[in-house]
């Protein structure tokens, strides 16, 4: 029975497999709901998220056999424990990360087509359904190993924020991917360094806050898409129109 008391501190093979099965089931249910009913993506996501979480809590309380016993150990699962990882965890994570990067490089062309024009991808004979599920599988793997470091909620931040920041700097997918990876890695480094400055600073949230800072810098400073660049463009356009109007006025005055 000891395996029922889940030790979140180590990357447990059973835990990984269980999480992966649940993750695959969840992504498949979401695509089933959006494909075969008029429920939109966001609602399908929310339904699967909460119902799966509910089932998880029910199972957990069943294991512990107390109706109100708060989910012991769940807080570590929710907030992450980057500081308590050991050497072997790091090797496992590094290996899986390298694997994910390798797969993304090999299937780069297919994934690119699938993201930009799924209709065309289907037209030229790519198995879009399988590829879709394959991306989801990679995502699930990334999430499952990331939960260790930053916890379940903030995992979402590491998936979204660096990518959104990278989107601001470029219009090319491969540049965006490399930038996103760099931004994510940098936030991990900065967050971890800051968390060593004082006692009791949690690593996961600080990593997320570093990623958010990069996002804010990107949204303000990025060339052509950033707020500053847009404001400057607007100003330039305004002065140009003003100049033209003045010129017209001057010509009119000259004619008169």
């Amino acid at each position: 029975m000891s395996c029922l008391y889940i030790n979140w501190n180590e990357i447990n093979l059973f835990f990984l497999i269980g999480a992966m099965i649940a993750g695959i089931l969840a992504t498949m249910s979401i695509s089933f709901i959006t494909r075969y009913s008029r429920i939109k993506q966001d609602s399908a996501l929310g339904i699967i998220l909460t119902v799966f979480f509910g089932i998880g809590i029910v199972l957990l309380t069943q294991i512990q056999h107390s109706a109100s016993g708060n989910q012991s150990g769940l807080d570590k699962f929710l907030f992450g424990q980057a500081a308590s990882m050991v050497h072997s965890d790091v090797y496992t994570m590094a290996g899986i990360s390298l694997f994910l990067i390798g797969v993304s490089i090999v299937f780069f062309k297919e994934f690119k087509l699938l993201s930009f024009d799924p209709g065309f991808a289907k037209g030229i004979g790519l198995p879009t359904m399988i590829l879709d599920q394959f991306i989801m599988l990679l995502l699930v793997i990334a999430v499952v190993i990331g939960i260790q470091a930053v916890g379940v909620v903030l995992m979402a931040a590491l998936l979204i924020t660096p990518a959104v920041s990278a989107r601001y700097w470029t219009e090319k997918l491969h540049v965006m991917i490399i930038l996103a990876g760099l931004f994510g890695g940098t936030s991990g480094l900065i967050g971890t360094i800051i968390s060593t400055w004082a006692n009791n600073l949690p690593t996961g949230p600080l990593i997320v806050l570093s990623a958010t800072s990069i996002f804010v810098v990107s949204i303000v400073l990025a060339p052509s898409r950033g707020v500053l660049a847009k404001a400057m463009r607007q100003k330039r356009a305004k002065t140009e129109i003003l100049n033209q109007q003045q010129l017209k006025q001057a010509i009119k005055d000259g004619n008169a």
Partner: protein
Amino acid sequence: MMNHIWIMLIGALVASSCSLVGCFLVLRKMSMIGDAISHAILPGIVIAFLLSGTRDSFVMMIGAAVIGIITVFLIQMFQNNGVQSDASIGVVFTALFAGGVVLVSLFTRQVDLDLDCVLYGEIAYAPWDTFIINGMELGPKAVWIVGSIFLLNILVIGLFYKQFKLCSFDPAMAAALGIPVVFFHYLLMSLVSLTTVSSFESVGAILVVGMIIVPAATAYLLTDRLFIMIIYSMIAGIASAVLGYYFAYLMDASIAGCMIMVAGFLFFITLFASPKHGVLFKKWRRKN
């Protein structure tokens, strides 16, 4: 015996007020906003606690509601700036949540907040936290808080039903008719924020998020008319609360978890068997 009724009543009230605003969120493709708010308000709770020094739920609720509206405002701002709506929600709520966790860790000596407790209030304990005026026991606090938010929701949505309806289905036309679309957007978001905050303190975040989305989506599969959709979603919500409590009692399992499981089960059945938009009937119709 009384406790059973109180818990079911609290569950039903949470379900009704959540599904009332949930219908509009599902229609506007903003379902995840409830999830975002329920996490993002953590710094609001911590700051309210640090400023006031009390763990009075009213003060915390105000702090949380303020941050809830700031969350919505930030999400909207990034969206106007060209970030996709789901990405914008993800960026904002995770950043605020991270800020909250850091605040809790920084002031850990002053803040005696149990994160588990803040995020996952337990409906089983709600009946014990009673509301007392002049020594008179007036029933659980949660019933009063959630009940008054429910009434507020009904009042505001009832008063501006036409405006909300038009803003959800055709914001461009609403704007053309002179309805202040932005104002109603923020009014609805304030209601969502208040509902989330008031409910999850007593029943836990996951139940609130579930009750906002699942019953409304169930109702969305059953009808094409907004008013009927609201009624159906409330019925589905209340049924999940009552049946869920019954199952939790039978199986000795988490109450919130069981309520969501029942809501999910109802959705699942509707997804396949709904006469209008169900998977099975659609297939059958295509065959004939």
